Each structure stands twice: as C-alpha cells, then as structure tokens.
C-alpha cells in the first residue's frame, strides 16, 4: 500500500469526496467495501478520473458533475441531427439537401501534418522572408565595395547650407544699416531669415528619410531655379520691341501648333476634339466681341485715313478679313494666317515645348542640358503660357499686320538672327543662371596644367589603375581550390629590428630570384621600362667617338623617361666639338671599331651551335697510337646541334644585341603577372604612371593618394542602419512633393 499512500497525497478534493461517500454507503458489507476501496485506489493512478463518475444515488440518469452520464460511449451521428432537421419547418430545403449530400459522402479528412513537418515549413518560410529582407542591402554593400573612398562614420552632419537660426542664435540687428534693411524687409513682407523651406515643406520632409529628403530638396532647388530662369526669360522677351520678331514668332508658333494638331488628330483624337472645342469657343467669343469689326478707336482713325493712305485701307481690310476667318466655321484650320486672339487660346493649350524658340541655347544652364523630369514639365508649361500671354499683350497694343509677301526662308533667317542676338545678350547676363560647380573646377584645373593632353592621358591611366586596384580589393570570385591562395605573410623566426635586417631580407629575395623561374610562368613584364628595357639592351663597346658623337639621330629615346633632351644638346653643341677633339686625342692609339667587330664576332661564335664529337676510338675496331677511327664512324658520331635562331643584330653592323637575362635587374622585376591584371601592358602602364608630387600638381597628387578608408579621430563608427538604405519612392512622400511643387509654382 505504499504506492497507494503516495497517490493519496496527490488526491484532489473531488476524489476524497468520492471515497468518503462510498465508505458511508457500504459500511455494512466489508468485502464489498474493500473491493470498492481497491477500485477507487486503482482509479486514482489513471489520468482521466473524471470519466468514472459513478454515484449510487437515486438520480442515476443524470449526473451532478457531467452531462454525459447517460450514453457516454455513444457517438452522435449526422443522421440524428438530420432527424430533427426534418421536423423543423423553418430550415430551407437547400441546407437540407446539402446536409444529405454530406451524409452520403464517405471520404475522411486528411490527417494534419506532423509537428516536425509543420515546423520545418515554418522555418523555411521564415528563412526565405528574412533572407529576402537582408538582400535589400545588396546594392549598398556592393556600392561600398566599389567606392574609391569610404568615410566613416557613415552618418555625418549634413554639409549643406544651414538656416540662419541654426548657425547664429540670439542675433539681432544692431547697426543702423542692418536695422534699415530689416525694416525694409519687414515692410515688404520678405522672409528675413531666407528660410530654405516653409514649415509645410519641412514637415513633409520630416516624414521622409534623409536620403529621400536630400533628393527632394535638390529637386525643389531645381524647380526654383527653373522658375526664376523662365521668369527672367519672359522678362527679356517682353523687352524685345521688334514687331517683326514677335510676328514671326507667332507665325512659327501657329505653324507648330497646326502641325501638332494634325498629329494629334491621328494619335489622340479625343485631345484633338477638345482642341476643336476650344477653337469653337474662341470663334464664339470673336463673334460676340467687336474686335476686328473696325469699330474701335484705331479703326476709326484708320477709316479717316483710308481715303488717302493705301496702307491704312489695307490694314482695315485685313481686319475684316481676319474677322471673317475667325468667325468662319472650320473643322480643320488649314490657313497659315490666323488671328492673335486664337493664338492666345491655342498657346494656352499648347502642351509642349513647341513654342520655345531656343531649346539648345542654354548650354550653360545645367537644368536645360539634361532631360527634364516629369515633375518639371509643369513649370515649363506654365512659364511658356506666361510668356505667350506677355507677348499677346504687346501685340494687342501694336495691332496686327501680316506680311504675306515674305517668304518662308526669309522668316527663318530673321528668326535665326534674332536668336543669335539674344544668345549674345544672354552670354553677357549669364549670372541669371547658376554655373555648375564642376565646370568652374574644371576650368581651374586646366589652367594649372601646362600640357592638358599629357594630363588627360595620365588620368585615363590612373582610372585604369584604380579600376584594377578596386577589382583586386573586391575579387569577383576569389577561387579557392585545393591549392589555396598564397599567404599574405612570410612568417619566420627572424625578428627584424633595424634597417640592416631589412637589407638582409632583400638579400634573401636576391637568392630567391636567382633560382630560375618556373617555365610555365608568364613572360616577365619588364618593370624598368624607363631605365633599361632588357630586350632592347644595346651595348656599345668602344665605338669610335667620332661616330657616336656625330650621329645624334641615334640617341635612344626611352619611352617615358625623357632624359635631358634635344634642346639641351643644341645648347651645348659648341661644347661637343671641343669634347670630340679631346676624346680623339685621348684615344688616338685605339682602333675601337675593329675591337668592336672582334667582340661581335666572338659573341656570334659563342652563340653558334657546336659540333659534338662522340666517337670513341677502339670501339668496334682496333685502337691505339697512330690509329684513327674510321671515317664512317666519325661521321656517324659527330652530332651537329640544330642552328640557333637568327641574331637580332644580324643586319645591324654597329650594334650588339644581347638577349641574356640580366640578373641584377631581374631581382627587382616582377616575375609573374599579378592577380587583377589581364596582361603585362596593363600592369606596366600602371607602374609607369607616377603619383608623387614631383610629377603631379597638388590637387592631382591629393586625389591620387587619397586613402581608401578615412576615419575620424575619436568618433565612434556605428554599424549601418536602416537610414543608409537607398532611396525608395513611396507613395506618401511623392504625394507630399507633388503638393509642395504645385504650391511652389503658384
């Protein structure tokens, strides 16, 4: 009963109650009591004790504790439920039918997946999600890897212009001049602090990320510049007094419009219809107004003059004609000559740049060079509209006259002339348009250089070098096979402490390199291209001084290490004569030329293949003193090596070219093509290009030697954060911008 005792400790109050109840009931019968007790105890060990709710009370059918005392094991079938369904009159037939169909189906539901499988699926989904999320950074990371220079910490204070309140706190106008200026500004409702952005704009910018805000700000700036530019342009054009110019321009505009209208008919019939409606409207207006009906002041005065003046009569007639034209019902206007009034309307509707007389003129204006973005088409249109409005006002004052005699060519010529003049004027007042910073810099740059072309070449090389170096820093696929990549360090037992030790290290290299390089190695790119390209080594030994000194044309020009050159030699040409004399005197007895020839012959001989005699006397025949091996045998065993390749100096009588490897130079040469380079010329050009201050201007030098990673002393470099993610258009931000831009332009 020890186990039973243990169990009893865990009894719940319900169980105790059961036991006590049973004891009370069957107090008389000992055996049955014992059996009950045993039963109760055995039931205690099981999990589901509540199932055995048996009571020996009168209410056997319904249990006090649970409803299912009766018929616990029975299943509830669908048919049972359906039985009640039939009885209920409210249930629709459709549901009844569905339930019946259900009842007839025998298929069982599938088992749910096991826990392991569901977990695996969950993990897979989560992993995919997070790896996708992480991939957002890819562009930033590759960009950083490619960057020539990285400046840490990544987020630094914005360098742009700051608001005055931010820079100067508690500043007040003190001097009378300042006060005067401020009072002026106040009276004109000018912003005093010249805020970069209005509060609304700032709020909207706050809603965006830093990057977005920067881009947007740049766009605002652009829009503003554009606006001021167009204002200036309109002002300029208004000042043009030439009637002819305006007339011609208008004509051109009308023409362009008609052309466009024709196109529109084909491409966008709905738009064309709208245009037509506008025309109809203008016609109606014309009919209502008294314009062109010769009833105005001007017309009356003309009418007086008409008797005597042909021109006046003509003008009046023109007016009438115009009225006729304008009030005429037209489907498609085909006439070139049209009315001003309509022009205005049409110009208003002009949706494009067609009216702009000088699209290419503004090469200086950075905003005009590139393609304008979608947002900026709006300001342009409005600007154009204002322009035309201004013109029409002028025209209205001047009255209209059309010169039909003029031919197209002449018109065009005139137009061009005007544009040219205007361009000239524009060049003078260029300050209206901001000159981009880069160009200014470029100018300064070119000023510094004495030979721009030379430096251009340098830059092209530099860029190549940088690209290569970058590719080395970001190896595309650092292939690591069984034989792993070379170690970066030579670890040894020698401790290097002084310069002497370092010299000793260098000696080591000499020892290393004297051993022949593997044959498979790529041909050694000559590093000392300037001082002595090994292949073109020319040894001139003991040449007649006369010959050497007089043949100035034979001075070898090294490719990129220009030695002291011709000019100097010209300067010292008088000295040459003297020197020649002196040298002649000194080497009077020497026959240098013959020495040289001997030398050359010796070298040629040394290079030639030798005949090897392998005959062994006494083999196969008698040998001894006085006996020679037979001729046949000698012929058989004399081996002639194959002839060496032709000497390069074969046809150069006064030159010896030695093709032997010079070990003293080889110690300093690169024996294998280093990794990022594709061929030896690339590598050579990289090495050849100097970076030092001796050869480069200060700015170039600074650019060339800029370190790859710049850190700020004492600044904590925070890890990248979400703000560093590239700018993404989100609908909310772009909406804000649209709003702001529209506000700006109004």
């Amino acid at each position, binding site marked *: 009963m020890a186990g039973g005792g243990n169990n009893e400790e865990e009894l719940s109050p319900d169980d105790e109650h059961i036991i006590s109840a049973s004891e009370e009931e069957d107090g008389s019968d000992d055996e049955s009591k014992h059996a009950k007790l045993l039963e109760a105890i055995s039931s205690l060990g099981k999990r589901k004790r509540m199932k055995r709710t048996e009571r020996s009370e009168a209410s056997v059918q319904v249990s006090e504790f649970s409803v299912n005392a009766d018929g616990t094991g029975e299943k509830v079938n669908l048919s049972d439920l359906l039985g009640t369904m039939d009885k209920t009159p409210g249930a629709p037939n459709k549901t009844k039918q569905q339930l019946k169909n259900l009842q007839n189906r025998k298929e069982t539901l599938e088992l749910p997946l096991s826990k392991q499988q569901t977990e*695996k699926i*969950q*993990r897979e989904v*989560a*992993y995919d999600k*997070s*790896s996708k999320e*992480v*991939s*957002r*950074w890819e562009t930033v990371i590759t960009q*950083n890897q490619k960057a020539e220079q990285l400046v840490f910490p990544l987020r630094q204070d914005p360098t742009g212009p700051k608001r005055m309140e931010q820079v100067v706190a508690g500043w007040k106008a003190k001097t009378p001049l300042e006060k005067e200026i401020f009072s002026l500004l106040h009276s004109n409702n000018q912003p005093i602090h010249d805020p970069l952005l209005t509060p609304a704009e700032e709020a909207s910018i706050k809603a965006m990320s830093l990057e977005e805000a920067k881009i947007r700000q740049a766009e605002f700036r652009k829009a503003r510049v554009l606006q001021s530019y167009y204002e200036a342009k309109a002002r300029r054009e208004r000042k043009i007094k030439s009637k002819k110019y305006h007339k011609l321009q208008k004509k051109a505009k009308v023409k362009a419009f008609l052309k466009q209208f024709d196109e529109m008919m084909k491409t966008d019939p709905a738009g064309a219809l709208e245009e037509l409606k506008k025309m109809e409207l203008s016609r109606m207006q014309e009919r209502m107004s008294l314009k062109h009906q010769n009833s105005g002041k001007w017309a009356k005065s003309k009418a007086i003059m008409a008797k005597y003046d042909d021109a006046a009569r003509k003008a009046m007639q023109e007016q009438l004609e115009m009225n006729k034209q304008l009030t005429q019902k037209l489907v498609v206007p085909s006439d070139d000559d049209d009315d001003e009034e309509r022009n205005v309307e049409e110009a208003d509707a002009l949706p494009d740049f067609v009216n702009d007389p000088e699209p290419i003129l503004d090469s200086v204006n950075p905003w005009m060079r590139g393609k304008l973005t979608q947002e900026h088409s709006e300001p342009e249109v409005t600007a154009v509209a204002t322009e035309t409005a201004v013109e029409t006002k002028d025209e209205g004052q001047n009255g209209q006259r059309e010169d039909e005699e003029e031919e197209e060519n002449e018109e065009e010529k005139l137009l061009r002339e005007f544009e040219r003049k205007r361009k000239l004027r524009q060049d003078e007042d260029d300050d209206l348009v901001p000159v981009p910073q880069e160009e200014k810099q470029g100018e300064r740059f070119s000023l*510094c*250089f*004495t030979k721009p072309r*030379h430096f251009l070449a340098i830059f092209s090389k530099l860029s190549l070098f940088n690209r290569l170096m970058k590719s080395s820093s*970001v*190896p595309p696929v*650092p292939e690591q*096979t*069984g034989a*792993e990549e070379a170690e*970066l*360090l030579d670890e*040894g*037992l*020698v401790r*290097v402490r002084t*310069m002497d030790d*370092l010299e000793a290290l*260098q000696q080591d*290299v000499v020892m290393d390199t004297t051993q022949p390089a593997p044959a498979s190695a790529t041909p050694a790119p000559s*590093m*000392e*291209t*300037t*001082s002595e390209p090994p292949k073109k080594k020319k040894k001139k030994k003991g040449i007649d001084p006369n010959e050497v000194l007089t043949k100035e044309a034979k001075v070898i020009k090294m490719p*990129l*290490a*220009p*030695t002291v050159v011709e000019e100097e030699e010209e300067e010292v040409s008088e000295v040459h004569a003297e020197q020649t004399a002196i040298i002649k005197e000194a080497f009077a007895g020497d026959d240098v030329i013959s020495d040289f020839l001997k030398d050359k012959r010796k070298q040629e001989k040394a290079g030639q293949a030798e005949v090897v005699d392998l005959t062994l006397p006494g083999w196969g025949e008698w040998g001894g003193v006085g006996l020679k091996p037979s001729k046949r045998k000698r012929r058989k065993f004399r081996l002639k090596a194959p002839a060496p390749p032709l000497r390069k100096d074969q046809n150069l009588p006064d030159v010896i070219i030695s093709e032997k490897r010079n070990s003293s130079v080889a110690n*300093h*040469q*690169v*024996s294998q093509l280093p990794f990022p380079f594709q061929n030896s010329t690339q590598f050579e050009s990289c*090495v050849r290009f100097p*970076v030092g201050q*001796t*050869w480069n201007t200060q700015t170039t*030098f*600074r650019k060339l*030697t800029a*370190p790859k*990673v710049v*850190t700020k002393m*004492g600044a*904590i*470099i925070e*890890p*990248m954060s979400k703000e560093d993610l590239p700018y993404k258009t989100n609908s909310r931000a772009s909406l804000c911008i649209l709003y702001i831009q529209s506000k700006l332009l109004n």
Partner: protein
Amino acid sequence: MRILSLRALITSRGMKVKVLCRNPDDYVRETTRDIQRVPRNYDPTIHPFEVSREYTRALNATKLERIFAKPFVASLDGHRDGINCLAKHAKTLSVVLSGACDGEVKIWNLSKRECMRTIQAHEGFVRGICSRFCGSSFFTVGDDKTVKQWNMEPPGRGLQEEPLNTILGKAVYTGIDHHQTEGTFATCGQTVDIWDEQRSSPIRSFSWGVDSFSCVRYNPVETELLASCASDRSIILYDMRESAPLKKIIMQLRSNTLCWNPMEAYNFTCSNEDYNLYTYDMRRLDVPVTVHMDHVSAVLDVDYSPTGKEFVSASFDKTIRIFPKNSGHSREVYHTKRMQHVICVKWSADNKYILSGSDEMNIRLWKANASEKLGLLTPREKAALNYNQKLRDKFQHHPQVRRIARHRHLPRDLFKQKRELREMKEARRRKAQNVRKHSKPGSVPLVTEKEKHVVSVVE
C-alpha cells in the same frame, strides 16, 4: 606658375584695360612657420626616371613601415584570474568592461590605462558581458545561473555594489548580447532566450534539438536577426519576430564564437575549433564565402572592425591575427612572449585599436594598424603617409618590396607547428590526388577547400 597673370580691369568709363599683375597670395607664405612657396614646373622632361625614383621611395616606405611597426600599446593588469569576456562601452571609446574567470568584472579607462571599478559580479566564471545600447548599464551572465544588470555609473560613497536587476535562471548562461536599439537582449545556455529588460522571464525561447550553446550574437544591421553557435557543431540563425529558428548549418568541428559584419547585413564570420575562420553569407549557407586559415590552434574569438573591412581573431595558439574580410590569410599577426591563450578580443569602435584578453590575466591594447603614428598628424605628415601607402600599394608586387612587407617574426614553436600543419595538409592533398588517380575517373570527386568543412545544412 601663375604668379603673373593677366587681369582685365574695367575703368569707370567702361573701357577694358589689360594689365600684368602679381598677386602676393601666389608667392608669399601666410605665416613665418609655413614653408616657402616654391613655384613648380611639372614639365616631365625635367623630372626623369619617375619609375625608378618611385620604386626607391616605395622600398624605403616599406622598410620604414616595418621599422615603425610596434603594435603593442599597453597592458592592463589587475584581474586575478584569466579574462573570459570583454565588452566595449556603447557610447564611450575609452571605457572597456572585462569579466574574469573568478566572477570579477572590471571597468577600465583606456586613456588613463587604469581600472575605474571592480565588481564581484558572479560566483564562478563571468561567461558573458555586454553593454546596453545607450551605455547607461551593462549585463553580465555567469556560472551561478544568473543574469545581472549593473549600472554603468559607480555607486555613491559608502554604498555597496549592487546589481540593478538580477534574473535567476534554471541553467547556466554562457553568453549574452544586447539588441542594437531596443530594450531586449538575448542569452544562450541550454536554449537561446530573448528577454525583455522589464521582465524576469524570457519573451521567447528557441531550441532545436541542441543541448548547449556557446555564443549568441545580434545582427547589428538587420537588428532582428540573431545567430548562435551550438555545441553540436552547428550554427543556427534566428529571427526575433518568428517563433521558430531559421536555419542551421552543421560543420565538421564546433564553432566557438561568431560575429556579424557591421557594414554588411548578411555576412558573418565564425571562429572554429579546426583552426580556421569561416565567413558565411546568410542567404547561401551551404558553402562559406571565404575560409580564413593561418592559426595553428583553435580560434576562440572573433570581432569585426567597425568599418567592416577586416576582423581580428584570437586563438588558443597565443596569437591574434587580423584578416581582411575577403582574404584567406591574415595580414598581420600579433604575439608577445607573455601572452598566453587569447580568449577574447575586441576591435575598438574608432577602428584604431584592438583589445585582447588572455589567460594570464592581462588585457592588452594593440594598434590595429601596426605602424600607425598615434595622435594628431599635421597635414604634411598625413600627405606623406598617404603617399607612402599609395607607393606601397603600387609596388606591392615587386619582389623586394613584397619580401619586406610580408616578413613577420613568429615564435619557434608556432613556426614549427605551422610547418608541421603545412606538411600534413600537403600529405593529405597528395593522398587525395593519388586516390583520385588510381580510381575510376569521376568516382572520387574533387572537393574544394570551402566545401570540405560544411557537413550539412538543416532546414
């Protein structure tokens, strides 16, 4: 050469007059301490032999760099047992926290090189230590199954050092890391738990058939991601927002610690018992991006430089090595006679120093760039250093320069071990080659070094 320049003057009448003028700014120095302005002629014919001259300069620069390579800065002693963990202060460069094997935590001031505060934090080892992201407090976990939060400020005079918070756990915690921006932290032990600072029970707890973990680290960029090293040779990735772990890689030997790249959200490097370090891209876990070899004993700790370009590793072979993040071999090895097994290592947040804690109770401060001059540099010094660096880069492939630049001293036993390892490796390679040669073509596949070390990826 612009001392003389043409200036166009516009007189009051609007006439243009061109004159020659000499601007003193072009030839007069600003202060007497400035160098004399010397107009230069850049005509290349005047400056011949540029390659040979630059080569000589490069050689000298390399030699000087090696001469000045004295990386060891200082040693901080004061602990009475081996140092088990290090942590940087999140907001101050000069403060470093260290936990020792006797349960002591010390807070150091690096600029003064002295201990500011000592706390008996735990009984038994201090297993992990980390600073809160704002730097106001720090957390420690220890062998006494507790997580404790401490104030970074010392208590007032006469007051006892007491933790702000203590959480009693059921099992030993072996590591801790704090979230980058939020008040949650992660511990590892028998499970990886995510805790809210305000609660005494974990808000989430991950386990995947693994009995113990050695390290857990938050991703500093994608701050909801975590990775942990488990004792069954696996590395497991988690997302804090998910209820289940993400993925598991099983390697041939156990990884001790790992570190995420602070500039590249998906890359992390783990230090392994098989003497190597492995850099993984979390999107492609089946093959490591790079295998970093050079240590001759188990690698115990790794930490990335804050620029994400390099990382430093501490090893049981008593050395610290610095690896470029995409290079298979180290660019630098640091060791001293007295430094024993290096257990923990950290790279300072300004990218200038490296801290190492080792068995023989010392914390050592090293320069990350061995030959760097400490302190402020004048612009001319800076220009000269940049030029020298550029020259070294330019001529790095030339044998003389390379030999000098690459030479490092190594203690004899390490050197021998290294040689031995190399021989073993060569022998293994040769054997594999022979097996391949003498078996049916295609039956013995060529396995690259990268593929060798990953046993499987479990989803």
